[in-house]
């Protein structure tokens, strides 16, 4: 069926609603993380159970994208037609009969359900609770089958496109986005509406709109979740953008490392085209729009828009000087908009509910919500979408469930390799673009890596610099060579070979790199060094002056020593990969420090806590 007018769309939705079975849905989260955790066999076993028990008339198994509860995958959500829902985490195949038998009304005996703290501002009133997730970009993720466009249509899908194409002028579309105050969610926070206006103001002719799905920040996976869980939202937003700026071609630049997202996008494009929601003469308005996929090949710098454009052109992904901005001269020299996945995922909602609605969420300077990927030493690893202006403490301790194993919180690193660390004293900061920047960090794409007291900050800075050195494209000398030198200094400090003047060298070099690099990668790459230097000077000093790693991480400065709890079982000696532990049975053993490679196998093997790390 081809949808030719908005009333066709309404009729289609009515038809789908009439055909709604009223069955209780069994949702299985099958994003990349769900599959990796063993979600596929669970879904298969669930289907088998429903068929074997003849329950097809009551239950329907639905494969959905990621709900963000990555810490308890594989999970099953039992969702009744009346909206009641129960979520079971860490599900095993043996639990399936009990879960199905209990249905959505009561909790299966002997099992626990996961509490969720999510509300959907488009569909619900804000609940009483103080700290809740506010889902706009992730509205459909984990709720619908991403491989069925019908599911998206039932969730008001393509209504925004219908409204924009038939009732608004391109300039009104740009203006509404400016009014909403949406800022780029990829990191820099540039107002999206302004970007669209720049491109729209260019003379008519070939223009492009590009979706930046080259999510390269280690520890950030929200874009993948959106693409895997709600691909149509991105397509719809790109078409809206195409209409607003006068582009008839959209390109999605996606990491080759995301095979599942690629497959789902391909399917989504096919389905939207078959309904006439992409292609020629959409909604009979004469507006044409097609979307193609372009693959990345593993280069972090390609997240920078000019580098990304070069990569699509088949060149090395090196950034170039701005201006001219891509909105003026981009792909093949034509005006081009580059928007991040999460940014786009917000756009259909803005046009469904209006700019004022969007602005009512978040802070005046940073309206809306932001998805954060919580990872590291935190209990609830996963995705949370929170209103801007929420306190870091609430995200980490309320939604994130606190630190693993009851350890002490040390820092949270926001913004990946370009960001900085935030310490316990700033946990009450309200998060927005400006406040994070003031703390020497940045929003970045929204990766939040939580670290506990067992983390060495010098080593962390060294890790990020290792990444930057790998990923610097090599075009600018300060970034190519300066970061390498920074890394070498940090490496020496971690190896116990630090000298006092290195502290000043680190700071001076960092500032030079920041000031003289061309693109965002170089301009932000020293941030982890500067922020750890500022917040943890004592750790640097301990490494340099006392040859001591306070967190006992840097192997060159620590020794494994057997204490008097040793009963001489000999287990560690057998496990030691270099045979450096000696001793006779039932007597205290000894580690030959000259041969020890400090792998820590002995300490992990010992059942009597007889090995100390100092």
């Amino acid at each position, binding site marked *: 069926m081809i949808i030719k007018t908005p009333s066709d769309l309404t009729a289609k939705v009515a038809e789908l609603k009439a055909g709604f079975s009223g069955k209780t849905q069994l949702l299985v989260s099958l994003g*990349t*993380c769900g599959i*990796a*955790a063993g979600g596929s066999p669970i879904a298969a076993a669930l289907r088998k159970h429903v068929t074997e028990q003849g329950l097809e008339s009551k239950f329907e198994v639905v494969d959905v994208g990621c709900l963000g509860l*990555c*810490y308890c*995958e594989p999970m099953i959500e039992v969702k009744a037609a009346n909206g009641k829902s129960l979520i079971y985490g860490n599900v095993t195949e043996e639990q399936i009969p009990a879960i199905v038998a209990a249905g959505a009304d009561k909790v299966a005996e002997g099992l626990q359900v996961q509490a969720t703290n999510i509300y959907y501002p488009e569909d619900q009133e804000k609940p009483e609770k103080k700290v809740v997730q506010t889902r706009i970009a992730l509205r459909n993720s984990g709720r619908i089958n991403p491989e069925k466009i019908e599911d998206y249509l039932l969730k008001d899908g393509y209504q925004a496109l219908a409204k924009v194409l038939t009732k608004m002028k391109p300039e009104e579309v740009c203006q509404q986005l400016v009014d909403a105050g949406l800022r780029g969610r990829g990191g820099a926070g540039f107002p999206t509406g302004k970007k669209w206006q720049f491109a729209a103001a260019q003379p008519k002719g070939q223009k492009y709109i590009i979706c930046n799905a080259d*999510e*390269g*920040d*280690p*520890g*950030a*996976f929200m874009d*993948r979740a959106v693409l895997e869980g709600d691909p149509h939202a991105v397509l719809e937003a790109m078409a809206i953008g195409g209409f607003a700026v006068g582009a008839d071609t959209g390109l999605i630049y996606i990491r*080759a*490392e*995301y095979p599942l997202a690629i497959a789902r996008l391909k399917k989504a494009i096919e389905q939207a085209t078959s309904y006439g929601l992409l292609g020629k003469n959409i909604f009979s308005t004469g507006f044409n729009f097609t979307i193609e996929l*372009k*693959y*990345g*090949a*593993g*280069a*972090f710098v390609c997240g920078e828009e000019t580098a990304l454009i070069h*990569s*699509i*052109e*088949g*060149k*090395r*992904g090196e950034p170039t000087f701005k201006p001219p901005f891509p909105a003026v001269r981009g792909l*093949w020299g034509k005006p081009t908009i580059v928007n991040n996945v999460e940014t786009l995922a917000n756009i259909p909602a803005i046009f469904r509910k209006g700019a004022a609605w969007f602005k009512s969420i978040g802070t005046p300077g940073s309206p809306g919500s932001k998805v954060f*990927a919580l*990872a*590291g*030493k935190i209990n609830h*690893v*996963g995705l949370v979408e929170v209103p801007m202006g929420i306190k870091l403490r609430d995200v980490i301790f309320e939604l994130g469930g606190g630190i693993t194993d009851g350890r002490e919180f040390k820092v949270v*690193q926001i913004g*990946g*390799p370009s960001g900085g660390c935030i310490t316990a004293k700033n946990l009450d900061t309200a998060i927005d673009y400006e406040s994070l920047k003031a703390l020497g960090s940045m929003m970045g794409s929204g*990766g939040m*890596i939580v*670290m506990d007291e067992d*983390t060495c900050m010098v080593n*962390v800075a060294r*890790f*990020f610099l290792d*990444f930057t050195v*790998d990923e610097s*494209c090599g075009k600018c000398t300060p970034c190519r060579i300066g970061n390498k030198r920074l890394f070498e200094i940090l490496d020496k400090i971690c190896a116990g070979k630090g000298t006092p003047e290195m502290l000043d060298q680190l700071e001076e070099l960092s500032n030079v790199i920041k000031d003289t690099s061309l693109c965002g990668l170089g301009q932000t790459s020293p941030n982890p060094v500067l922020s750890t230097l500022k917040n943890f000077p004592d750790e640097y000093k301990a490494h340099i002056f006392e040859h001591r790693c306070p967190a006992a991480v840097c192997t060159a400065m620590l020794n494994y020593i057997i204490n008097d709890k040793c009963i001489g079982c000999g287990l560690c000696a057998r496990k030691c*990969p270099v045979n450096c532990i000696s001793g006779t049975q039932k007597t205290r053993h000894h580690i030959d420090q000259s041969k020890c490679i400090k*792998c*820590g*196998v002995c300490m*992990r*093997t010992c059942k009597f806590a007889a090995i100390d790390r100092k």
Partner: protein
Amino acid sequence: MTCCCEKTESALEKLARLEPEKTAQLNAFIDTLPIGKDIESNRAHLIIALHQAQGIFGYLPSEVQQLIAERLKLTRSEIYGVISFYSYFTDKPIGRFKINVCCGTACFVKGANLVVEQFSRELNIKEGETSADGRFFLGVLRCVGACSLAPVVMVNERVYGNVTPAMVSQIIADCKD
């Protein structure tokens, strides 16, 4: 160093002789691309062609680079420049079992470096190398996005989560030809 132009014919002939089926497969894919005289627009197909070629051959040996260069009417140097820029592409053969340890931040914080060291010791190869018998390749990745399972190890398509150094020997034992 001699100029490679003189050996052009033989490089392609060698490829066709050694890998006739794979060469035909790659040629068939390139046939589907709208290649014309305009080098700028041909270049737009370079990365997808390299992806396909690496999928077919497992890596991008110089003969394959030569073939792509000729078909897309680009220079060898440019092709090599692109291959060496992107970490996804490799011009060296890699082992049948690609062991990739995720070293994204979340995995790093949870001790992925200890896992890499353990693999390195047990397989007696360094990161980025293939074992002498051609079975194992040891590499590191920057975040596969399965941070909840950190540290993560991928062996070809199979994912292992919450890996500790003690699990390494079992993971190696799981790799059966």
